C-alpha cells in the first residue's frame, strides 16, 4: 500500500477514546459533517459500524460511500486506518477492561 498520511499515523498510534469522527484518516470536514448528521458523531461509532460489518473491506467501503459519499481514496484511507487501529488496540482494550476489575488488589 502507499505511504500512510500523518492523520493515519496519529490515529493508529493511540486508543481513540473520544476522538471525533474527523480524526479518522480520509474523513475531512465535509464527510465528517455528513457522518455526524447521520448519527456517527464520534470515531468509536464508526468503529462500531466497522465491526458490525465484520471488518470486511468491501462492505465497509460501500457503507461509507452510501452514508457520506466518500470517494475511493477516502474509503481506502478510512478502512486502512480503522483496520490498523483494530489490529493494534482491539484486543488490548478488551484486556484493559478486564484488568480494571483487579484495581483494588488481589487480597480483598
Amino acid at each position, binding site marked *: 500500500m502507499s505511504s500512510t498520511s500523518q492523520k493515519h499515523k496519529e490515529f493508529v498510534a493511540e486508543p481513540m477514546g473520544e476522538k471525533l469522527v474527523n480524526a479518522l484518516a480520509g474523513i475531512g470536514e465535509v464527510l465528517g459533517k455528513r457522518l455526524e448528521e447521520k448519527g456517527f458523531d464520534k470515531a468509536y461509532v464508526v468503529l462500531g459500524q466497522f465491526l458490525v460489518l465484520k471488518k470486511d473491506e468491501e462492505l465497509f467501503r460501500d457503507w461509507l460511500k452510501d452514508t457520506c459519499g466518500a470517494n475511493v481514496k477516502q474509503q*481506502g484511507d478510512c478502512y486502512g486506518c480503522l483496520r490498523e487501529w483494530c489490529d493494534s488496540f482491539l484486543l488490548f482494550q478488551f484486556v484493559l477492561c478486564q484488568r480494571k476489575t483487579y484495581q483494588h488488589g488481589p487480597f480483598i
Partner: protein
Amino acid sequence: MAALRNKSDQEIKDLLNEYGIKHGPLVDTTRPLYEKKLKEAMAKAKVPVTKPSPDRTFYREDQEEVTYVTYQTPVRSEGPSGDGKPYMRSRPEYSERDRVDDKPYSRSRPEYSERDRVDDKPYSRSRPEYSERDRVDDKLYSRSRPEYSSGRPYVDEPHVYNTLSSSSYSKPTPVVKSGGGVVKKENTTSSGRLIPLWIQFLVFLILAGFLYFIFTNMESAESSPFNRIQ
C-alpha cells in the same frame, strides 16, 4: 421484487445468503446497505452476464503475435480495489504495442518485466515472458519500480519470482533492442529501474575509489607523537 423495506430481518438475511452476499448482523445502520446490495443483486440476476469483465483493458496491437489471457484474482484484503483484477500477460514482442489505458501512469515500456501476482495459477515463471499486471488502482505509484513498490504487501512467494524474472529479463532485452522494434521510451531502462544498473555500479565504484583515495592520503599515524626537538 419490491418492498424490501417491509421484509423482516430474517427474510433479508435469507435473501442475502441466497445471493451469496457476505454480510454481518442486520442492524438498523446496516440494513439500508444490505437492501441496496440485494437490489443490485436482483437486477444483475435478471441480466445474464455474458460479456467479459468490465475491468479488462484493451490492447491496441500492431503485431499479430501478441497473446494475452485475462483472469480474475481472488479478492485481496490489502488491495484497495474491489474484486476482479484482470491480469495481462504478453510475449516479448510487446514492445510495439501501445496500450490504451485509463490509468494515470505511463505503461508503454518495452522491456518491461513485471511480477505475476497470481500465485496459484499454473503459469511458469521461468520463461522469460513478460507478464503485465493491470491493477485497478486509484493510487498513483511509480511504474518504474514494480518489483519494489508493490512487492511489499505480498507474501514471500513473489520474492522467488522476482529473482527469476530479474535474472531472465536481461537476456531477451538485447534481442528486443537489436530487433529494431519501435521502442517508445528507450531512456527508461530495461530492468524497470529508475537509474540503470551500470550507472549505479559506476557511482559505487567512484565513491569507493574516492574514499580509498582519501584513506590512503591521510597522514600516517606511524610516527611517534612525541617528536624530539632537535
